[in-house]
């Protein structure tokens, strides 16, 4: 029942994620060994696959782009005191918004006008989709965790319904819309680099990566430098104190969730405008849920989220490579590794951090002047 020792800030910020990651890797390595593969070989292959080639790196960054959006979405809501499980659905709706704008206007408007409109459409759709659970939480007391989970299913069903009944290409056999006009295409990274005279292999990576990095910077400025962010964090950290300060917690709930939904909605710029060029089913592909892991791993800080997105992007890409190369190593193994990372950096972090704290204190105390070691003395006092 002893009181937990405080962890120094540097350790909390920098060391703990690495320790948690290392433990997750060891655990995953044990499982890999258990099925008769060499953990070392798999690890090397995974890193090679993710970072070893320009193409691999591109895929890693492409995956990371969506994770940055959803990770930011989860963390903005978190700073407002809300656990948004609905980034998946908000991203789905965002893609729908982006796609609808493209279907409507891609034959009529030039790219420089159309692409911002598509971004706006996606953000707006995601925002509205998140605002409904936010309203229910703020004014009706329905817990946002429950409602956002349900809204994921609704979003998926809605997209399926629209694609089957309304948006499907005439005469087409697959459940997808007609391709957008060329103006709706967000340039790929290789296209842009080719314009600069740099040769880069073709990949799904597109310039929405820059949008994601801009969004991360924007979230940082908003949360820690703007008055709106100050108020949002005040509500998230202490509703009572916020009310005392004259901040309306209910409005802040709507604001935080709306912003969160808008960020998730931007996933559509990567997947729909950047890669697919048409609306289709399940383009989010779990990025909304991975965003939760990214936010946890990244300590809800934009810098951490970008780094965690890179890690998860590497896992996706490297894992795909490994599953192609190694017999018996399926993509599910990557999901397992992800699971371990979430487990150790989220749920188990509170178990691990006291150990680390104790180790650090022991180390610093040994370095400091020797602590007093008292011998059980005979009573001379009292």
């Amino acid at each position: 029942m002893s009181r937990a020792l405080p962890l120094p800030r540097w350790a909390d910020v920098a060391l703990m994620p690495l320790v948690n990651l290392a433990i997750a890797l060891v655990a995953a390595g044990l499982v890999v060994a258990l099925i008769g593969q060499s953990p070392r070989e798999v690890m090397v292959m995974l890193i090679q696959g993710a970072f070893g080639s320009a193409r691999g790196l591109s895929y890693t960054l492409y995956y990371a782009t969506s994770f940055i959006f959803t990770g930011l979405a989860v963390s903005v809501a978190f700073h407002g005191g809300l656990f948004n499980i609905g980034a998946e659905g908000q991203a789905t709706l965002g893609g729908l918004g982006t796609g609808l704008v493209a279907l409507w206007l891609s034959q009529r408007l030039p790219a420089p006008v159309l692409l911002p409109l598509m971004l706006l459409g996606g953000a707006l759709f995601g925002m509205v989709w998140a605002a409904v659970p936010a309203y229910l939480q703020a004014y009706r007391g329905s817990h946002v965790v429950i409602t956002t989970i349900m809204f994921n299913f609704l979003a998926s069903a809605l997209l399926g319904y629209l694609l089957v009944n309304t948006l499907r290409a005439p005469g087409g056999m697959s459940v997808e819309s007609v391709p957008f006009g060329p103006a709706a295409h967000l340039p790929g990274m290789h296209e842009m680099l080719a314009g600069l005279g740099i040769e880069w292999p073709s990949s799904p990576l597109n310039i929405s990566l820059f949008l994601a990095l801009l969004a991360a910077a924007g979230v940082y400025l908003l949360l820690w430098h703007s008055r709106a962010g100050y108020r949002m964090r005040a509500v998230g950290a202490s509703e009572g104190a916020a009310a005392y300060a004259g901040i309306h917690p209910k409005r802040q709930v709507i604001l935080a969730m709306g912003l969160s939904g808008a960020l998730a909605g931007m996933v559509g710029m990567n997947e729909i405008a950047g890669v697919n060029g048409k609306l289709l089913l399940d383009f989010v592909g779990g990025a909304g849920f991975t965003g939760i892991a990214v936010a946890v791993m990244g300590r809800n800080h934009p810098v951490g989220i970008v780094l965690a997105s890179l890690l998860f992007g590497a896992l996706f890409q490297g894992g795909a490579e490994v599953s192609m190369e190694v017999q018996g190593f399926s993509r599910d193994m990557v999901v397992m590794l992800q699971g371990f990372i979430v487990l150790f950096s989220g749920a188990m972090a509170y178990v691990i951090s006291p150990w680390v704290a104790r180790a650090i204190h022991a180390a610093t105390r040994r370095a400091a002047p020797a602590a007093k070691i008292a011998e059980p003395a005979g009573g001379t006092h009292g």
Partner: protein
Amino acid sequence: MSAPATPAVSSAAAPALAVRMVDINKRFGNVQANADVTLSVRAGTVHGLVGENGAGKSTLMSVLYGFYAADSGHIEVAGEPVRIRHAQDAIALGLGMVHQHFMLVETLTVIANVMLGAEPHVLLKRADALVRERLLALMGSTGLRVDLDAIVGDLSVGDRQRLEILKTLYRGAKILILDEPTAVLTPQETEALFKVLARLREQGTTIILITHKLKEVMRLCDHVTVMRAGRVVHESAIANASVQGLAEAMVGRQVNIGRPSEGAVRPGEIALQAEGLTLRDAMQVTRLHEVSLSLRAGEIVGVAGVSGNGQSELLEVLSGLRAPQAGRMMLAGESFEPNCWLEPRTARRLRMAHVPEDRHARAMVMSFAAWESAVLGYEGLPEYSRRGWMRHGRMRAATEALMQRFDVRPRAPKLGSAKFSGGNQQKLVLAREIGQSPHVLLVGQPTRGVDIGAIEFIHGQLRALRDAGCAVLVVSSELDEILALADRVLVMNQGRITGELPIADCSEARLGLLMVETEDAPA
């Protein structure tokens, strides 16, 4: 369980010691919470353990009760060296602790709370009968009476405390540790508690009383130990101690927290007037019943009352955190009706500041750095934000200045709000509110959880504000504080104002009576 099987027989010369803690050291990180602490408590006495917050009293008792392991030192109970690793070890040795925050299940009955975790029979009905029999005997011999079948949630604070003591005695406690037992009691309840404690002492129970109320120490204790900064700085029989001497030992310098002699106060114009405030909560229970009051510039009005009689609600209504169902309020020439009640932001604009009673849940955002908490509520002012952007440089500079002016320690604007001691948090909150030079200041529990040195300072600041012409309303459950600060006293009882007295007519006994008398049984 390393308790010795046979109780020790003390040597003939020395009086029997119930507890002896020798050279206890306990360090948390860089803080030496206990340094070579030696405490000897004689059997069958009441031993006062006093000291400011953070002096190490609670740590010492937690070591004794098995919550913490000491880094070094040893403990003897009834003359035998013991090792106490868990609370269970302590209980087996006959130690019992009554915490400041009661450890009771509010939805269960009194008897169920007593036997919880120590049911003497697998069948509850049988267990109930067994426990009841023993409890009735215990209640008879100690004078601790509680209705055994009442739901704990319905009990008064005094009853709950009696229940806690009963619970520890039921489990065989011979050494009772009481942590700030009178913090939540009325003077009358305190009186009753002291009678019970005196009786327990006669029956041979040893009592360790952790407190910062020195008057109580002088009244009840036989011996007293004073701690400061983790060390024992004073130890004596009560006959050789004085309130002034103990206070100085606690703080390490001369203190004066009584009422300074002062000239007559000349209250000015009415700064705030409230009429017929009536508030019902969500369960339709009336919390405030037609409360009317007025505050004049240049006076301190004290609101006395037992916690939970509407004082908190009164502060929430006056500060704009809650709208009443009926009533009216005038502030700075503006009138507010229930359907369009004052908002906290409007209150600040009209120069009414508020130091809320709950520092942790309201006054600060504990996860914010001090410089962020130091502008809470005023973040929209042009000196703190412009065009939607916070001005961090100015916020930090302002915090630095506030810390300087109110002697907040450590003077570290970047430190987390939660890392300051209670007294320094309170000083920072007061600095923030007073820093805006308000015309009206509402203060709830200005010195709750604040140590003596800071109390003296905070009281001084409130008086200075009054002298500068501010109207101050102080809500406090500490009668001593009301008596030391107020120029006029309002007594609240069950949501009503049951008395209004100029300070000259106030005495502890008279206020105490107004605080508890009920309509059907007027005193």
